[in-house]
């Protein structure tokens, strides 16, 4: 059996180039294994060999991220690897970000599987855990041998195209991806086991961990509402009649913006709701009740607000994944900021 070709990525320190004084070292390459590569190769056993070691100074990488990633990928590409192992970076932030960025670039540009290793508190974990396999390491190099063993094992599994098991079995940090499978026992049996176990004071493990959403602090109040530009944003699916941009009624993947220039009120023959999660009968009789253009125009005339922005943003909330919703929010927030609005009225349903 031919050995799998493995390229190892390290920072300047672990590559033996030097310490903090050499952190500005640009990307470079050495044939074969270097430093911890010896442990990696031992862990790979007969299955693989380290054909090259690519390195970069941590400062250099963080200061020239795009350029460094491209340069590292170019160096790696020459060796036609079956697998790329990066780090482990333990709890080192800059090194962690470099390992994550290199792995992402390799997976995207070369379509080669990667594995990196970090301590769970490494700041790079949050950025990369969902798209990469990050083996959980200790805080420092004391855990190097054990970490590289797990990285090698997981790397071989990935390079062979085999199914990757549960994070607790394989030793990687959970990516947060939920997959359906068959349990050994009915849900009812598992539920009563869990209940009785916890009543007896035994440890239990939920099958579905609660999410950890970030909290958004409310902004300070608008100083002069009578002069403020106010925008409307809705998750209620109000679109021009006929839904010209085909926004999905549920599980939406996109948002849209439409002009309200010259519109004093939303007439049912020109506007409609395409939302798939509530009864839209009333909304279609009077779309203003979901997107209150009529009232905002009145307030504009009364001088209660400065003006209503002539653009509104719309998406459909029903079943939209939080990943998509987060992207919608970021994209729409950028546009709202660029429109220099001072306030947004967000109508849900």
């Amino acid at each position, binding site marked *: 059996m031919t050995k799998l070709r493995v390229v190892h990525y390290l920072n300047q320190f672990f590559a033996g180039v030097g310490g903090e004084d050499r952190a500005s070292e640009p990307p470079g390459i050495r044939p074969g294994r270097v430093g911890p590569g010896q442990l990696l190769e031992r862990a790979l056993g007969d299955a693989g060999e380290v054909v090259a070691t690519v390195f970069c100074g941590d400062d250099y990488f963080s200061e020239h991220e795009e350029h460094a990633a491209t340069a590292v990928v170019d160096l790696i590409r020459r060796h036609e690897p079956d697998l790329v192992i990066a780090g482990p970076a333990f709890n080192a932030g800059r090194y962690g970000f470099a390992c994550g960025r290199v792995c992402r670039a390799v997976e995207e540009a070369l379509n080669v599987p990667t594995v990196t290793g970090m301590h769970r508190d490494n700041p790079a974990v949050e950025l990369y855990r969902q798209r990469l396999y990050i083996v959980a390491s200790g805080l420092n190099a004391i855990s190097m041998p054990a970490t590289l063993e797990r990285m090698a094992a997981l790397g071989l599994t990935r390079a062979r195209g085999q199914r990757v098991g549960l994070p607790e079995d394989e030793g990687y940090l959970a990516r947060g991806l*939920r997959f359906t499978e068959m349990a050994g026992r009915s849900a*009812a049996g598992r539920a009563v086991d869990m209940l009785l176990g*916890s*009543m007896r004071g035994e440890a239990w493990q939920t099958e579905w961990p*609660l999410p950890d959403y970030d909290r958004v602090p409310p902004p300070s109040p608008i100083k002069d509402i009578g002069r403020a530009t106010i925008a409307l944003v809705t998750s209620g699916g109000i679109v021009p009649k006929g839904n010209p941009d085909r926004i999905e009624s549920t599980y939406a993947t996109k948002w849209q913006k439409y002009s309200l220039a010259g519109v004093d009120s939303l007439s049912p023959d020109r506007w409609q709701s395409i939302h798939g999660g509530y009864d839209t009968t009333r909304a279609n009789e009077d779309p203003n009740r979901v997107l209150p253009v009529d009232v905002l125009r009145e307030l504009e005339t009364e001088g209660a607000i400065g003006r209503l922005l002539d653009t509104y943003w719309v998406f459909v909330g029903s079943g939209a994944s939080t*990943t998509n919703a987060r992207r919608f929010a970021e994209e729409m927030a950028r546009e709202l900021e660029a429109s220099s609005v001072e306030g947004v009225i967000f109508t849900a349903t």
Partner: protein
Amino acid sequence: MRLDLATTVARDARFSEATRLARGVLEIDRDELRTLLLEDPAFEDVTLDIVRPGDSVRIIHVMDAAEPRWKPDPGSTFPTFVGPPRTVGEGTTRRLAGIAVLTVSDAVAGEPTYWREAIVDMVGPGAELTAFGTITNLVLTFRPNPTYLDASRSDAVIENIMVGSSLAQRYNRSVRVAELKAAAYLARAVDAHEPDERRAYELVPPPDRLPRVVYFYQLAGATVYGKAMDGMLPTLIHPNEVLDGAVVNVRSNVHASNRTSTFANQQHGLIEELYARHGRDLDFRGVIVYPAASDDINEKELLAEYAVKLARLLGAEAACASYSGGGHPAVEFMLICRKCERAGIRTVLVMPEIYGTPDDPGFVYFVPEAERIVSTGRTTQLVDLPRVERVIGGEAFFDLPGSPGDAQRLLYRYLLGCGTSAGNGRLTARTY
């Protein structure tokens, strides 16, 4: 309250000139049963098919399923649908096991189809997900009377997207009555046979002090003694009543994976499990049923308060709670969890993961007290189903593309009962 389930097992079924059990095989008089079902003018015709595990068959447009039961006087078989309005859950009930009655029909005027498609596969991975793939099924495919297809009728107007038109609601009820009539008819035919098995269900107070457990049962589209729960406060029901035909699923417009069929109520996973451990590991105090989908936050609070109060009246120290699926129902479900935990009642939640992509946390709503959750699977995941030789129920899916007989890659969501929060199935989801 003691229920004796006297079970006769049918190891197969076939059509014959009389309805009877012959050496363990259920013989069905097709003409007699058709005549019985066509008593209801709602139907122009009905087709009967017998399908078995391993048959290369896919059944689509499934509405509900039931297990054959017969409960002679002074009992009542499926009260208010077949028998008179009497309390069930005590006395003897004849049960014919090994066979289910499946009802199938195209949609009628004003019947929404977004949540209506439900598939039962008799072969391949779909067949392993629920009981229907492992037992014989008598499939009743109804053709509605043309008046039910007349969209110009005033009663064909959709009331709301959950229940559709009043015409569609009447038709759904007709299909249930027919299904339960067939179930009663089949079980009655084995009434004279010595049962293969007898099992008593009785909540005898345990001699020792054991954790007192209640079950919060969120109903969506199901009726209790024929009555819809919508707008009602939570109420108490004996678990025997659920197992004995008091809870019937009347709405077909519910995601198939989450749909708790009448069959799944008759063999309710959580109730059976709590019963099995009653007197040994726990003291099962009762079932609190409550409606899903009130859309007013004050009503949700009140509903949760009331349900938890009932649990306290029962002396509950622990609870299982199941979630019917959907957006609004998630809120009152989670509020019950919160109020239970705050009242010192430890809860385990049983719920399907109905929203999102793999990277989505998947909750419509949650409370931090929801620390113990059993997942019945992320039903938005794709599953591969094989090509089949025969499709029962129609030429085309409601909303899915392609020909139903072809190999399919579709969401678990479309497979009847695979993720029901009654806990009957083995699906789960894990974090990778």
